[in-house]
């Protein structure tokens, strides 16, 4: 089962996605939560905390910067830049965040 949560900014996408992921995991499903926001913060709604959320975005960014070689399979990618979240959910940031210093 694949679920995408979309909507207006501030309307609760991330909150709903986080709760969905945790509820499905509690119901016994294996859940991978993907943060596709250029400004990723799903980690906070899932409950992994501010620091881990920021770290995950950083790992994703370093991949883009060539700091880490691209892994060939989705499983390897997940194990590389995914993180365990409560209830057994696995979280990965899949969008590139932008360089802090333009120009």
């Amino acid at each position, binding site marked *: 089962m694949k679920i995408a949560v979309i909507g*207006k*900014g*501030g*309307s609760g996408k*991330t909150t709903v996605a986080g709760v969905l992921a945790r509820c499905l995991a509690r119901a016994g499903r294996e859940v991978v939560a993907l943060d596709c*926001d*250029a*400004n990723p*913060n799903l980690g*906070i*709604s899932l409950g992994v905390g*501010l620091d881990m*959320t*920021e770290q995950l975005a950083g790992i994703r960014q370093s991949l883009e910067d060539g700091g880490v070689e691209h892994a060939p399979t989705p499983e390897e990618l997940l194990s590389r830049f995914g993180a365990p979240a409560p209830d057994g959910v696995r979280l990965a940031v899949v969008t590139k*965040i*932008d*360089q*802090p*210093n*333009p*120009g």
Partner: protein
Amino acid sequence: MGAAPAALKVAFVDKGGAGKSALAGTVCRQLARRGHRVLALDVDTMPGLAVSLGMPPEGARLPAGLAERVEGKGWQVVKGARPAQLVDRYAAWAADGVRVLELGKLPGQVEPSVTVAFRHVMERFRRPGWTLVADLAAGTRQAMFGWAHFARIIVVVADPSAKSALTTRRLLPVATHLVANKVGCASDLEAITAAVPLQLLGAIPYDEALAEAERRGLAPIDFAPDSPAMIATEELVSRLIREAS
């Protein structure tokens, strides 16, 4: 006669949902009531400034074709497309005489020639006595791509949430000032100012009147002009004016 006062140019950025549009719209109206000529720019590709300004949600946009691709030079604004004339011709009128221009919705309305012309207006509009207020898209992307550079004052709007703290931290390289919004208690304000090492220009209380205005699709300043949040934004406007001079 002294030198003309420096133009007030302000950009609002935030996480999304922290209150950029509500505050930017109110600031525009209050500046206009104080006698400023105001150009309000909705740069958000999910536009919402019009409602906060108190006008119909279909905003005024620049037409396509004001910029073209030139061999070897990339996109260029066409000859004769002067920012002041584009504003006169295409910007809508909001209450209190505020002029409003909207970049356009994604997907579909924002084609390259419109984007290029809009950015040209933002960066080159220099009419004495005018104030520019821009409401950027939520998050970090637009700000990181220079869409706030036209402004001397780049306000990051932060609410007391952890998500807002995270985004605000990511916006630190571009932001110049902080406005704390949806402040419920003293510890909210402390949490925001502790997380953000920028000069605080205003602390706007959490105000149910703003939420109600939003439900009705009305500008806060029209729905509840004397509410605590509107009084706090008056103070913000005074600080913005002082900061620009």
